């Protein structure tokens, strides 16, 4: 991927993972935190989101601004407070293991940008 004027190695299959240098949480200063271009590019890579150079600059500024405001959260004492992932008491909802109707392949494939027979067509995974 070429983004922000620099080559970034893609994480592909069988390819060694290359992580860009990012601030580590341990050495990270809440007061002066600012998201660098490198961090923005790293996050974009994790999200598989292509960005133009202008977008990288803009996001670096906007995300820094937003995160700076969210630092307020660190003031809250959450000692011994469990996290809430969802607001209802349901857990481990299961369904009966019964055969039911499902959509036919033709309908599943109807929205596919590219298909071949009863398959989705994708780009070659191994280059």
């Amino acid at each position, binding site marked *: *991927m070429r983004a922000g004027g620099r080559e970034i190695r893609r994480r592909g299959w069988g390819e060694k993972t290359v992580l860009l240098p990012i601030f580590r949480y341990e050495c990270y200063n809440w007061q002066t935190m600012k998201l660098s271009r490198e961090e923005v590019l790293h996050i974009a890579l994790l999200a598989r989101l292509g960005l133009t150079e202008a977008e990288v600059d803009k996001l670096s500024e906007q995300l820094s601004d937003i995160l700076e405001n969210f630092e307020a959260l660190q003031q809250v004492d959450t000692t011994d407070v469990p996290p809430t992932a969802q607001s*209802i008491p349901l857990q481990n909802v299961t369904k009966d293991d019964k055969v039911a109707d499902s959509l036919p392949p033709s309908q599943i494939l109807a929205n596919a940008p590219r298909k071949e027979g009863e398959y989705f067509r994708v780009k070659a995974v191994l280059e």
Partner: protein
Amino acid sequence: MIPQPLTIHEAHELLKAKKLSSVELTKACLERIRQAEPKVHALVTITDELALKQAQEADRLIAKGDSHPLTGIPVIIKDNMCTKGIPTTCSSRMLQNFVPPYDATVVEKLNDCGAVTIGKANMDEFAMGSSTEHSAFFATHNPWDLTRVPGGSSGGSAVAVAAEETIYALGSDTGGSIRQPAGFCSVVGLKPTYGRVSRYGLVAFASSLDQIGPLTKDVTDCAIVLNAIAGYDNRDSTSVPEPTPDYTQCLTTDLKGLRLGIPKEYFVEGMQAEVEKALKAAIKRLEELGAKVDWEVSLPHTPYALAAYYIIAPSEASANLARYDGVKYGFSYVNTNSMWEALEKTRQFGFGDEVKRRIMLGTYALSAGYYDAYYLKAQKVRTLIRREFDQAFKQYDALITPTSPTLPFRIGEKMDDPLQMYLSDVCTLPINIAGLPAISIPAGFGDGLPIGMQLIAKPFGEEAILKIAYAYEQATEWHKRRAGV
């Protein structure tokens, strides 16, 4: 001649008495769409052929005496709910050509009632936004002042109701997306308890916060629509198997003995004076109607809700939107032989600015090294916010706040300042964090622009807020004012 404006219950009486046919009512709405749409831009798709077919079928049902309160009544659906054979775009280039092969549960339920679908409503792309300016197609305009936003993300649904293009609409609410536009457009908007209405077929934004609800012209209509869409659905594993009461039964005007709390943290700094004045007058009116009001309630963690929300919602969104890969459905970038480039370019060109911003924010909050500081911390704060509400509802039947701290703002005003835009949801998003039901009802005007009042209840306490909303509505005239587009 069709008397305007018609509510669901008024239209139902006319249909039942054979003074009006569903085909006539549908044609009247379609004509109104032709007049108003060039000014308000509320709709992404108009399904006139389907609507007239459904209306004819509804007229047959009514002639047989086999009718539900929603039979033959036109509805507009927010464009993030799947409608079989009708494009469902989420107002995104990514899904511009997506035609679902199935109906969302709510759509199926309305169809079973004999509803007439006349169109799909514009929204902020993937429901991310508070103004409907983040639609990839066009911005929707507020019918009360065409230079202002209608709120969002269900802005198209709220405007379609306020501009009389439809009798009612469905919206979805993740942080205020039904209530805030309802407040900005002077209509009634309800976000039910999380788990009350099935999310099957609703395009996912933030799965622990999303909930579908009605936008209507009055509280009676709201109860009628909730009756139709609420209930357990085994296709949504977060649907709660609680019995569904008849919500129209709780609509009485006697508020004696009801305890209302006013959390002072919601009367925030930066709140517009007109909003504060209208809200205080509305609460006094409720006091006069017999409710016991405590003006000094405190929910001290409220100021942290915004940050917690804008970490949790984008985190869930970044995971949910990972599915848009250009392979199974949606926009696909094809001018490359590289799989990775195709994936990155598909997402680069398919998503708009706000969606990209939230994917980035969420991916960051979930990434190695930051997970504990952001996502986990936000989820712990979520626990504290929920506990505070639980405590409050031991003392009060409902809490009352403004729906939004400001009047509808100008189109373009907050587009370059995401934080200011996020602040527009500051009164509504704590309710999603806690999974509670809340309704916004018309509570006055400032400078000729609508002001909404938000009523909040404990989980599955929809009846309490519908009752208070109904009593207030019967004692006031705000809901009868119409935007003159």
